[in-house]
């Protein structure tokens, strides 16, 4: 009995991924994060978003193979890749705005110098 349990446990551990639930919620979160990144203007071929897209695609293949654990992990990483893509895009925009503002201020200083 004990021996059988041990073998069963070992097999379960080996095939552990198969016992993971289907990561529906994580799939939703990941897709939402990808959409959000696209919505702020991140390009599909920009580095972290491209990672997110390829991992999401891999996760779908894993789901089709009923490899739920691998799918969940890929989706979790893809979600954060997408969120980083979004954050990077927002940061890039804020840098641009700041640079534009600094240019305007510089122009004002120059004009003030000209007038005086």
């Amino acid at each position, binding site marked *: 009995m004990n021996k059988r349990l041990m073998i069963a*446990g070992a097999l379960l551990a080996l095939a552990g991924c198969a016992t993971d639930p289907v990561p529906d919620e994580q799939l939703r979160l990941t897709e939402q994060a990808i959409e959000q990144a696209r919505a702020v203007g991140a390009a599909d071929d920009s580095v972290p978003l491209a990672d997110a897209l390829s991992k999401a695609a891999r996760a779908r293949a894993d789901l089709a193979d009923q490899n739920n654990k691998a799918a969940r992990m890929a989706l979790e990483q893809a979600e954060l890749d997408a969120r980083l893509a979004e954050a990077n895009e927002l940061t890039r925009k804020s840098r641009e705005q700041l640079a534009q503002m600094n240019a305007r201020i510089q122009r004002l200083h120059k*004009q*003030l110098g000209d*007038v*005086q």
Partner: protein
Amino acid sequence: MKPASTLLRPVLGAWLVLGLAGCANHATDEALAQASAKFQAVRDNTEVLRHAPKDVIRAGESLARAERLSGYWGANGDVRHYAYLSMRYTDIALAHSEAAANLDQLQRRGLERERLQLALRESKLLSVQRQGQWFEDQLLALTTTDADRGLVLTLGDVLFDTGEADLKPSANRTLLKLVQFLQMNPRRVIRIEGYTDSTGAAEDNLKLSRDRAQAVADMLVDLGVEERRIEVEGYGDQYPVEANATERGRALNRRVEIVISDRAGALGEKRQ
């Protein structure tokens, strides 16, 4: 209840099998060390903590999980996974923090910009006023000061054909300056006085002088000066500036004079 050892046995068995699959390997240690170093850097950064506290906390939680799992055999994949998540959270925290700091600075610089815009407007206004002074100086250079009448601008004979009251185009320059001057000095008023030489009948001369003064007034009105600011007088051949004996003297006597009031709008006495 079964003794704990019986319950643990299958778990121990599983560990043994998993242990064969993967000892802690170099790549995992490296991922863990990298995630840990990254996290240390943001954990001590008060700016990042202030702007993105949640992401820093999640980076810490993921890292703790990776470290805990690294104590188990066969968990290499999971360790690397959580180390990866931790690094991503750290990067996200850094990006959010930079964006927030940029927006803070943007707001401060926006205020600075408004202040500079105001200063620029004020200095431009000042320069426009100086320019107004320049126009005024230009016009005043064309005038003479008469003891009785004040400022007098003389439009010479060349502005009219002999016997005609129509203004020649060469008068435009002076009149435009006068219009500009009157626009910048809205309280000043003018009296336009026409004069002729002594050739011809006195009555004709009176009419001609008046018509010429009126022609100038009409032009000024056309250029935008309000009629109520303009008086028109014809003096015929009275008040010559030179003897009418010579052609040069007669030419100087054929003229239109524009008397300009003081700043408050008070004109000198009318000639009788």
